[in-house]
């Protein structure tokens, strides 16, 4: 008790922040209980205590609905493809940049590669439309010139997921390469020296020295990606999709958004959201445990 009194200044300092976490994080966790109730769209949380308990009604409605499999499948496919292409891409970029000998050139290329990271998804989506719009899109019109057919990229189920993955890689590749480049910069130059004496060429050195040296970082980053498997890119999809591609583009988050905030089925949408949060928690927890197992400090 005396010790706490001694540290009172620090508790006062921490208090506003802790209150923030209670109100804006722990209260919504409690609020997620509306998933087991029937909340009226007019009352919102004001009607929380009066609303009747309905048990797992909303969860059962979700798991038995026609959307259930689609939404889960889309989330996993989009997220999985983003990992498949988006995860190795920054590693390759870092390996390439690492081979550039002229420092000034390397730095300029690095800076340009960060550019997409700083642009909002709204602007990115605007640029994607400028390239792919059915009429007047640079790419669409160019293809039209050669083939004479006008492709509706953003409204076509066959192309939509590809556009999501490509724009995801475009936006994240540069920024994600930072961590790998940092890891490469701490590799002992003596390793390369002795390899050179042994007659290794640069490709061999990249494969046998650089890559193994950053393997630990790669594994950690991969675990982090797996932990976030259910984050398939909410903002990006919300900005780009349309009813004609819902079949392949609707993910858990966009489904929750439409059901909850547009259709005002608060309790149902909260149930879907909670379903996702619980699975996400298991994934993140497992990923962190695995990282700890590797004998390091883990992700956090």
């Amino acid at each position, binding site marked *: 008790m005396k010790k706490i009194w001694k540290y009172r200044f620090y508790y006062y300092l921490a208090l506003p922040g802790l209150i923030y976490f209670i109100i804006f994080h722990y209260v919504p966790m409690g609020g997620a209980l509306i998933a087991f109730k029937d909340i009226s769209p007019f009352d919102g949380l004001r009607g929380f205590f009066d609303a009747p308990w309905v048990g797992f009604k909303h969860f059962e409605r979700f798991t038995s609905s026609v959307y259930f499999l689609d939404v889960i499948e889309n989330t996993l496919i989009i997220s999985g493809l983003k990992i498949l292409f988006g995860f190795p891409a920054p590693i390759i970029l870092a390996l390439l940049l690492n081979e550039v000998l002229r420092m000034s050139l390397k730095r300029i290329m690095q800076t340009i590669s960060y550019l997409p990271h700083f642009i909002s998804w709204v602007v990115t989506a605007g640029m994607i439309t400028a390239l792919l719009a059915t009429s007047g899109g*640079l790419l669409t019109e160019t293809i039209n010139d050669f083939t004479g057919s006008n492709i509706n990229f953003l409204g076509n189920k066959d192309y939509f997921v590809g556009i999501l993955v490509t724009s995801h890689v475009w936006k994240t590749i540069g920024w994600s390469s930072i961590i790998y480049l940092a890891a490469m910069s701490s590799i002992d130059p003596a390793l390369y020296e002795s390899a050179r004496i042994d007659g290794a060429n*640069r490709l061999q050195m990249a494969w046998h020295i650089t890559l193994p040296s950053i393997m630990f970082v790669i594994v950690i980053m991969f675990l982090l990606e797996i932990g976030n498997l259910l984050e398939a890119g909410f903002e990006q999809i919300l900005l780009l999709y349309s009813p004609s591609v819902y079949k392949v583009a609707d993910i858990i988050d966009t489904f929750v958004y439409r059901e909850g905030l547009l259709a005002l089925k608060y309790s149902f949408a909260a149930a879907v959201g909670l379903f996702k949060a619980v699975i996400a928690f298991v994934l993140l927890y497992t990923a962190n445990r695995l990282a700890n197992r590797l004998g390091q400090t883990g992700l956090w």
Partner: protein
Amino acid sequence: MKSQYKTEIFYNYIIIGILLILTLSFLLPFIVVLSTSLISEAEWAARGGHVLYPKKISFVAYDILFGKSYVLFNAYQITFLRVTLGTFCNLLFTTTLAYALAQRDLPYRIPLTFFVFFTMVFNGGLIPQFLLVDFLNLRNTIFALFVPTLINGWYFLIMRNFFMNIPKDLIDAAIIDGASPVRILISVVLPLSMPVMATIGLFYAVYHWNEWFYASIYITDNELKPMQIILRGLLNQATMEGMENISFMEQPPPGASLRAALIIFSTVPILVVYPFIQRYFVKGIMIGGVKG
């Protein structure tokens, strides 16, 4: 020996060639948008979308943009207010909490840190969050734009790590000199923390500049809509989903060059600033990133 030298040169060219193509692909969309914003509607129509560079530069789009300046000016102001006020409050609350929980001997430090950490792996979801903001009557206030995201868990951890690594000798020396905890914080810790404050502050500022989703669900009042929302409304109008019709331009959907001009207009501040601030970001990733 000579042939090996030749392969080496060849190797360099291949690497640089691939990287140049990549670099160009990062820039190309920006070049297209910039060129589109710099031509007249007539030229755009005549060229049917094949605009890599402007043939004849025209500032018509920008003229129209500034002619309709009330909505734009207002949206810029809201974004500016959000960035300054939001970033200030973010930093204030993140720093105080991080500094307090960086005290190694603080009783209950571990459970309190876990209390924050837990919110990073589990959350109540979008709907309860939205209903809470609604319940607190924060909707359609500027506070809805930064209070619900006042402290970012990752940034909190980065700052806490930074504070924990400040050499203890410096603090001890100040204690021996009879400095109070407040004094130590203000005259010893804060001056040392400027780099991390700048980094985290910039993280928050870029977030506020670019954020649009929460603004779109919490703000329905046109007077309070930030830049990104106006932009989104305008870009949407011209494409498939006319979800919300922002009374911004006259009836016919705005032309390509006008849309491009608006994109440029809302992006230029970041484009100009980011090459100078990116090293802080890189530093931030290092401090916060994987140790080892």
